[in-house]
């Protein structure tokens, strides 16, 4: 490891999360690690159940009561969020770290006006009250390009379209100028044109405010389009972490390769798309080995059954990491 002169804004190291359920303990995350610098944009990609959202919730400290961080460190701006008191964490949430969700309509309180909901956040972190909070809330609505923001302040979520609700959610998340925004499937359930508009808005605001963004998505294409680096997750593991271009040019983890083969891209015929065989392993199993892709992998061999350690390598565009005992060969540049 080289000493980085610019320490990352957020660094997740060896993060494991388990959920208590009626049917046993689910090891949802195991030694997950990645980092993001100030103003950087990365994507966390994986199918549903891969642990993307759990990672985001662990970082935000809003895991369900049944979930528990069993080990690891979440460094943010020089402190470990896992060691912070609930009070310190609550102070940071919404001010330093913010998050937007999929299903924006459900993420807004259905019986409170959007203006009041933005004002709630401003009152909490900036002690703005009354007309001052209202004015700032209106500025925020204008910033996310909601037309007629004065009137929309008094609208309830059910009076707005899904895309508008997501804009409100973004306004709410950015109201206190956070250094990091986690966008958890922000465009799922929106129609295609709205999707593009929302993504452009996130890009633009991220750039103009120097805000780092973690985009969580199952859509590799979307990730490539908006993020410099991509973290691929599978069954609670980070299987590959690489610059977007390098990843697309030459995936090293068999799962990433499969994922790429299953992603529609320009210049590719629909017939060429290949589905990934099998499903995620049962994360309650006690004998989950080092590799959780084993049962679905055509390259599986004896070395894979032992423990697997992430392998780092340098490449064009930055370092990359892969969690595989038999990774695919790197293509010579």
């Amino acid at each position, binding site marked *: 490891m080289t000493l980085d002169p610019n320490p990352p804004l957020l660094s997740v190291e060896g993060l494991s999360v388990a959920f208590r359920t009626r049917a046993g303990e689910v090891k949802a995350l195991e030694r997950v690690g990645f980092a993001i610098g100030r103003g950087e944009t990365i994507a966390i990609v994986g199918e549903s159940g891969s642990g993307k959202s759990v990672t985001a919730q662990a970082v935000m400290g809003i895991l369900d009561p049944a979930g528990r961080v069993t080990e690891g460190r979440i460094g943010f701006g020089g402190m470990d969020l896992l060691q912070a008191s609930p009070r310190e964490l609550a102070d940071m949430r919404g001010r330093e770290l913010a998050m937007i969700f999929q299903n924006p309509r459900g993420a807004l309180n259905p019986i*409170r006006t959007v203006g009041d909901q933005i004002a709630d956040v401003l009152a909490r972190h900036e002690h703005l009250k009354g007309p001052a909070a209202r004015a700032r809330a209106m500025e925020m609505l204008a910033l996310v390009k909601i037309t007629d923001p004065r009137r929309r302040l008094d609208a309830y979520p059910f009076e707005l379209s899904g895309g508008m609700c997501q804009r409100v959610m973004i306004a709410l998340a950015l109201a206190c100028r956070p250094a990091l925004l986690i966008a958890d499937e922000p465009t799922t359930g929106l129609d295609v044109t709205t999707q593009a508009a929302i993504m452009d808005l996130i890009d633009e605001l991220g750039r103009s405010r120097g805000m780092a963004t973690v985009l969580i998505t199952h859509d590799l294409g979307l990730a490539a389009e908006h993020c410099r680096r991509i973290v691929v997750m599978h069954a609670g593991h980070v299987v590959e972490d690489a610059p977007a271009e390098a990843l697309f040019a030459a995936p090293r983890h068999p799962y990433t390769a499969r994922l790429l083969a299953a992603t529609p891209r320009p210049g590719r015929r629909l017939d060429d798309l290949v589905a990934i065989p099998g499903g995620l392993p049962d994360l309650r199993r006690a004998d989950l080995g080092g590799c959780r892709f084993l049962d679905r992998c055509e390259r599986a061999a004896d070395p894979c059954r032992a423990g697997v350690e992430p392998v780092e390598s340098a490449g064009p565009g930055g370092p990359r990491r892969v969690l595989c005992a038999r990774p695919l060969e790197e293509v010579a540049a």
Partner: protein
Amino acid sequence: MLAMIGRRLLAALPSIAGVIVVTFLLTRLLPGDPAAYFAGPAATPQAIEEVRARLGLDRSVPAQFVGYLGDLARGDFGLSLTTGLPVLRELINRLPASLELTLAGLLFAVAVAVPLGILAAVRAGSWIDHATRIVATAGVSLPTFFTGLLLVHVFYSVLQVAPAPMGRLDVFASPPPHITGLYIVDALLTGDAATAWAALAQLALPALTLGIFALAPLARMTRAAMLSALGSDFVRAARASGLSRSRIVWVYAFRNALLPVLTTLGMVFSFLLGANVLVEKVFAWPGIGSYAIEALIVSDYAPVQGFVLTMALLYVLLNLVIDILYGIVDPRVKLES
């Protein structure tokens, strides 16, 4: 706001019409010959025919229904056979007693059940959660009349802290001047603290009895609604924006949880008004329930009919109030027409 209340009133009209039709039909279902029934067992055939004509039973059913509507419109609920007094007057005299009891019971139930349900949801899985579940299941399992008797036995017979279960005030005490008809309120309004206290002492056990019964469904629903609100996406989002715990629990979760609780309140009122009759009997409470029971035993039908109609109208009215409250809490209701 006014438009909404007007709309709700209109929506309640079919219920009111249904209630009136059913109470009318109930008299038509009387077994045997209603004229003979109303004339009494010792009546001659001629007397029976007279009663038939007087009651209008010689007319066709639709004509009788129209007659019934006319009577209701004039406030004529018929005469009680036993007392010979107009049923409506008696109902009006006794209604405040029933209302005082029901409202006190409801107040107690809400005051205990809602905080209990919230605590149980916020500390899901804790001892208070388990205790709430047991209380909730036990509460609906208790027959009200039995709870009432148990309370009388414990607090009157054994501990001797409660007054005798004989009505709203001691027989030797004089009731406060009539303002609202609710003794405690009237006594307080006239500054008569002693009477207010005496009335409260009489009211405590019957209200508690009713309250225990209503408590269970309310606590259960509050807990369930709070749990679902606390697990919702918007509460997660509120946590992600760092809002304080009290703000999340009260402004975000509780106000949303209030909606299903309000709906449950309608069902709770149905229980309360029914249980009211039983509690009135146990505590010799001079409300419309005990009036109906006295009439039932001697097969005096007009008071029973008047009682059923009054209770049903009261229930429709209470549901209307709940609907309006719902409209105030939930902005989504206003858009629907």
